[in-house]
């Protein structure tokens, strides 16, 4: 009996530790779930192992209720880890509830007066979840080029993880490392730790059939989304070699490379087999940024040399040396252009990268608020600069949240208005010249312009005496502090408004436009330049200052007679082909003195597109130039109307105008 007592004590200690582990893992899963991520296989697996151990031990010490509850949990986790049950919110809830049950049941053992909660409801719910047929794994297990010897020792879970990774088209590597017998445990643990950032360790198998005199050889099967074979890593073991046994995207087996083990003696032979495997290099984006900056500076130097050449030719007259110089310079210019082009290409990644994340998020939100949504995506392959892609993710996420929350109606409302019960959201990307357009469209209720108007009046953003065009009304939704939603929902009503979206897009030199059709839906289109780093700009002079205006937002430049400029309600306008164009003088915006001028005409640069455009009054246009935009840093970075600074070839630094912001300010001022 005494033996039984001490066993029970052992059990309680172990069970407490296990429940602690379960709690931690559930917490990880919940936060992944909140971020719209798939649960990590490793977390599910350690959860399974913990509950599995608990079940075994509880059964052995005769604690039937605890054993059966953990048994149910184990069944559920077993299906999850083997891909036989889909992950969703209710699974997470069930697991959390069951864990609370485990804890309560354990606590009641140490304090017998405590009432034991009834576990039957949660157990029944788990049973119900598991009642359906388990999802089937693909009949033929994909095993690729993995050594059959290794497959023999795979547990069901390991086989499943291998198959999953191959299905996803990940790289599968076999790493062989030899460790000294007296320290292999520490060394192996270090190697596994080193692998972690790159991928998933599926198994590590101590090799057989070899004398242990030279140490112990491990074969480690690794799955990795990215190619990590060329990483410069000082591995913990001796003679470590990695071979790729399944290439990414290759689901069918590739001839397994099986170097004879006895040959793994010198490193030269090793590198031979490593070199042949893959042709991809992973590069830190910061290194590409640096290269891009260097190219940018080369471009600038090139234009300076051009100016010098021009001056020399003007001074000394045209000679054969001058001609050669000019020709070589043109040639060099062409090569620099190619260099720049190729470098931009290297930085391009498909927008599909973030689309995946967004689709997951839509599914999650749709579940959370019980609004069925179909998301349709197109143009995932459209390429954009990597930094741009990351920067656009949050604004897109916000627009989509808005669309689901405010745009789409409830299924009942949709049925009443004769629409399909399930709402649709379209996420599209496509290229248009030097721009990429990303659209978020829903087939929901559209934006009620009357409500927008009311709200704008309420918030004193609009002038009740004035008439507003639909276009002008829509623009109110991008103003800070504006929200037409009657209720603040958990989803999109969290303080971050469309004004932040517009601001973030403008920071990327992009623009956002809205088209809404009341009752039928709303479309947000975002126009972005393909890359941010080098752009062509118009160099203009305003007063004594020189500025750069990104050329992609300039539609034309005009010479306007001062007498053609009219004043309406204190704003300056000019008639352009039958339309009224609002004019903006930067000196007024930046509160600088306007030098009196004797000129009778001025230059007007038309910026923006369609109905959202203004004319910028400038004193002189100096020409076009390629510029490299640099940020102004944290202190000056938030200046209205300034996107950054750039260097001109002559070592002069000038400011780059933030066109989208200027338009915003000018149009607001007019209202």
């Amino acid at each position, binding site marked *: 009996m005494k033996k039984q007592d001490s066993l029970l004590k052992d059990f309680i200690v172990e069970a407490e530790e296990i429940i602690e582990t379960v709690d931690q893992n559930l917490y990880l899963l919940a936060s992944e779930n909140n971020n719209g991520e798939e649960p990590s296989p490793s977390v599910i697996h350690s959860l399974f192992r913990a509950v599995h*151990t608990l079940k*075994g031990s509880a059964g*052995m010490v005769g604690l039937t209720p605890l054993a059966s509850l953990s048994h149910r949990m184990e069944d559920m986790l077993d299906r999850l880890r083997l891909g036989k049950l889909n992950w969703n919110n209710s699974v997470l809830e069930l697991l959390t509830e069951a864990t609370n049950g485990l804890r309560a049941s354990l606590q009641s053992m140490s304090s017998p007066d405590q009432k034991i909660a009834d576990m039957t409801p949660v157990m029944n719910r788990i049973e119900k979840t598991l009642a359906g047929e388990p999802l089937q794994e693909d009949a033929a297990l994909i095993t690729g080029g993995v050594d059959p010897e290794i497959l023999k*020792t795979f*547990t*069901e879970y390991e086989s499943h993880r291998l198959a999953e990774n191959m299905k996803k088209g990940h790289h599968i590597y076999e790493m062989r490392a030899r460790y000294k017998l007296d320290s292999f445990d520490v060394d192996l643990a270090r190697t596994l730790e080193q692998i972690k950032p790159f991928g998933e360790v599926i198994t590590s198998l101590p090799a057989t059939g070899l004398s242990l005199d030279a140490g112990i050889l491990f074969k480690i099967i690794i799955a990795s989304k990215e190619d990590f074979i060329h990483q410069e890593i000082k591995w913990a073991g001796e003679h470590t070699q990695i071979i790729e046994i399944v290439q990414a995207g290759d689901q069918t087996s590739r001839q397994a490379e099986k170097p004879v083990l006895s040959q793994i003696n010198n490193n030269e032979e090793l590198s031979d087999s490593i070199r042949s495997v893959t042709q991809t290099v992973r590069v830190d984006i910061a290194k590409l940024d640096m290269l891009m900056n260097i190219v940018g500076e080369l471009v600038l130097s090139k234009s300076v040399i051009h100016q010098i050449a021009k001056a020399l030719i003007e001074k000394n007259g045209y000679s054969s040396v001058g001609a050669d110089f000019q020709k070589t310079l043109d040639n060099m210019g062409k090569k620099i252009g190619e260099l720049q082009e190729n470098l931009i290409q290297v930085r391009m990644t498909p927008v599909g990268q973030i689309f995946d994340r967004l689709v997951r998020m839509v599914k999650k939100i749709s579940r959370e608020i019980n609004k069925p949504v179909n998301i349709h995506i197109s143009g995932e392959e459209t390429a954009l600069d990597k930094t741009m892609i990351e920067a656009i993710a949050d604004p897109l996420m916000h627009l989509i949240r808005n669309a689901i929350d405010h745009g789409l109606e409830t299924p009942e409302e949709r049925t009443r208005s004769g629409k399909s019960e399930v709402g649709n959201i379209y996420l599209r990307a496509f290229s248009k010249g030097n721009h990429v357009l990303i659209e978020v469209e829903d087939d929901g209720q559209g934006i009620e312009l009357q409500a927008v108007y009311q709200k704008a009046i309420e918030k004193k953003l609009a002038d009740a005496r004035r008439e507003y065009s639909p276009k002008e009304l829509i623009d109110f939704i991008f103003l800070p502090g504006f929200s037409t939603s009657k209720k603040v929902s958990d989803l999109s009503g969290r303080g971050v408004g469309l004004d932040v979206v517009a601001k973030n897009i403008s920071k990327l030199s992009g623009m956002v436009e809205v088209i809404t059709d009341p009752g039928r839906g709303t479309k947000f289109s975002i126009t972005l330049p393909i890359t941010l780093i080098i752009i062509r700009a118009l160099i203009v002079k305003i007063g004594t200052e020189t500025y750069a205006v990104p050329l992609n937002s300039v539609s034309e430049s005009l010479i306007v007679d001062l007498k053609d400029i009219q004043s309406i309600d204190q704003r300056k306008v000019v008639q352009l082909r039958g339309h009224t164009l609002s004019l903006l003088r930067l000196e007024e915006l930046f509160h600088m003195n306007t030098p009196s001028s004797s000129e009778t005409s001025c230059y007007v640069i038309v910026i923006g597109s369609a109905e959202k455009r203004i004319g910028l009054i400038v004193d002189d246009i100096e020409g076009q130039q390629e510029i490299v935009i640099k940020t102004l840093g944290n202190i000056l970075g938030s200046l209205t109307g300034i996107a950054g600074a750039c260097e001109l070839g002559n070592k002069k630094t000038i400011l780059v105008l933030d066109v989208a912001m200027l338009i915003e300010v000018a149009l607001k001022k007019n209202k």
Partner: protein
Amino acid sequence: MNKKVLVIEDSSTMRSLIVTTVEDLKGFETVEVKNGIEALKMLPTQKFDLIITDINMPNINGLEVVSFVKGHPQYQSIPLIIVSTEQGEKEIQKGLSLGASDYLTKPFHPENLKKVIQKVMNGRA
């Protein structure tokens, strides 16, 4: 001389249950480790007469322990008993084909463990 048994099991309750059951048998003593890696470290340090191993363990699983033992001449002759759950049927089959002598499914009655140990050891005597 007592027969030495290496017990590989990550659950402390299960481990101590196995250990007490084995030591209940006359003429047996145990060495306990928590996982496959510790087992591999322990193996060369002394001569074992029997190994009892769990299957689901991180990094080096029980099947890999069986394969390692059977793949090295100096350990080959040590019989192995694998312990798994009823869901682990496929794994038990793999373990047996890799050379494990017998198996037990959890939860088991200590008497059953004793019987299996005796069966395996007698088969070798």
